């Protein structure tokens, strides 16, 4: 607003038309613009082009039209990787959002302590690789403390990373540990914006805590929850580090998620064109999800007014 006011004023008396500032502006933008073109825009265009070629880095890329995409439709490993990714995303998002919502409400009702908020954020500071290594150790079949506890409880040991059934839930669990506090803080910030008199009015009307949660907290939290979903869905589709350090796609193909599969095709098998085609598909999927979620976000905004 201040900008518009100033602009109106300057057009009146100050003799500084936009043209005069173009040169200066370009000098300020130059480094960022260079980085943008060199490492974002041009690679994106190139990636799109590569997806229509057969290219193994050694010989020049050959244009083959839609062949990569046709091949992809018939690649069981590709479909498997999408299914595995979907399983991971579903577990990760479902559990993480529910737990984070609970944790945020607990924080909001019980304590505003900065120390507590700091502690729950601590895992987010730790590199994925470190989280993966620690998980690998703590859930080791023979020596891990996780299995030790199972034995104490009189249960059977679980091969957390070695079982086709448990591998994905285990990896999802590790990432939930790392991201829970971060997500809870985002929701906590949303909780703090809800006007307190709504709860007072509810209390006077004799509404129970449970009822107020469903009728006041949850509806008003919808925009924040939608934002959290946008962030976590996009993020969890890109699970890579944990898998590269622990299971490397196994057992069999149980954890060969799409990101890891693209990586393998490109850097183990030098099948760059095919890998590029898969990343185009991944981008389309992510864009679709984002658009869908932006709609949800907009639908949620009306509740605040």
């Amino acid at each position, binding site marked *: 607003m201040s900008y518009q006011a100033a602009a109106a004023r300057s057009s009146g008396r100050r003799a500084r038309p936009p043209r005069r500032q173009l040169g200066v502006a370009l000098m300020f933008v130059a480094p960022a613009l260079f980085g943008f073109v060199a490492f974002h825009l041009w690679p994106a265009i190139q990636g799109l082009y590569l997806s229509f070629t057969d290219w193994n880095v050694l010989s020049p890329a050959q244009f083959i039209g839609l062949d990569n995409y046709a091949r992809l439709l018939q690649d069981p490993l590709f479909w498997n990787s999408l299914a595995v990714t979907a399983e991971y995303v579903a577990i990760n998002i479902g559990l993480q959002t529910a737990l984070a919502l609970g944790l945020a409400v607990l924080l909001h009702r019980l304590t505003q302590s900065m120390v507590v908020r700091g502690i729950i954020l601590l895992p987010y500071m730790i590199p994925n690789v470190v989280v993966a290594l620690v998980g690998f*150790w703590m859930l080791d079949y023979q020596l891990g403390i996780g299995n030790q506890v199972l034995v104490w409880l009189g249960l059977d040991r679980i091969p957390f990373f070695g079982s086709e059934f448990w591998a994905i839930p285990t990896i999802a669990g590790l990432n939930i540990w790392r991201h829970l506090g971060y997500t809870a803080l985002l929701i906590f910030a949303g909780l703090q914006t809800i006007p307190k008199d709504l709860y007072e009015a509810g209390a006077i009307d004799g509404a129970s805590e449970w009822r107020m949660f469903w009728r006041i907290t949850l509806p008003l939290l919808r925009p924040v929850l939608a934002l959290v979903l946008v962030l976590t869905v996009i993020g969890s589709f890109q699970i890579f580090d944990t898998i590269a350090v622990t299971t490397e796609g196994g057992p069999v193909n149980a954890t060969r998620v799409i990101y890891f599969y693209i990586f393998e095709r490109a850097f183990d098998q030098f099948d760059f064109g095919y890998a590029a085609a898969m990343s185009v598909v991944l981008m389309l999927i992510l864009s679709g999800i984002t658009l869908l979620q932006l709609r949800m976000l907009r639908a949620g905004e009306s509740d605040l007014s």
Partner: protein
Amino acid sequence: MAVMSYNDADAGMRSDEVPVSPGVTRRRPNWGRIFAWAALLAILAATLFPFWWVLRTGLSHNHALASQAGSLLPADFTLGAFRRVLGLSTVAEAQAQGGSGASLNFWGYLRNSVVVCTIITVGQVFFSAMAAYAFARLRWPGRETMFLLFLLALMIPPIFTFLPNFVLIKQLGLLNTYAGIVAPFLFMTPFAVFFLRQFFLGISREVEEAAMIDGAGHFRIFARIILPMSAAPLATLSILTYILAWNEYLWPLMVGSGEDVRVLTVALGLFRQQEPAGGAPDWAGLMAGTFLAAVPVIVLFLIFGRRIVNSIQFSGLK
């Protein structure tokens, strides 16, 4: 489960009340509050326990880990693993303790991480600030279009640009150089430009106009007025950038796995693959290295914790 405990929470406790310590509660304690606190403490314990477990394992002797797998204290306490990781013990000593004999060259990787993260942070924040200044404070044709383009780049998943970027770095002959590792992050990220532009838009025009009347040019205004006035957001962005750079794995693994430029995250990933053949993995050594790799970020967090927590809450409100 955690949501259920909300149900039981004291109906009289409203969100606007600053919690009082248990001793001076005005209401009688009820089971709901006790359950709620128990749930919170359980989450805090689950958050912190792995940190202790890493340290506990790093202070253990490999040969004792199997027999004392459930002991909460270090098994056969020794500083051997930390000595091994820091390169303070001989190959023979390391192997006697269950290590592979391969050293981690911890200090070298630490130096690489610090160099890479510092260059990325300084470059990215400064260049993004320059761009944000042009987008927020200058008027020029094409401004809106270019900003929209920057924002659109936020939507591109990294793997999509990752392959062509790798090829580019390879063709430029920058594989296994610091330049190759930092290049894609050095000049900007769309998020950094967006983040800083928000703050620059809020700075009052009067200060700037007064400086102009005094004859200051745009570079002077940028360096002497805008940057100092935005110290807080610049610091926040720098810390977040540093932590993200520190945690990066895939890109430095691809373009900088060579010994000379290998960063800590990559080194740990490779260290895990160099397990002693046939024998059990060197868990004590691995956990000692893991612990040391996490220390710098945790120290950063202890110093700037309040600022980081606030900035994440802030980003949730945007």
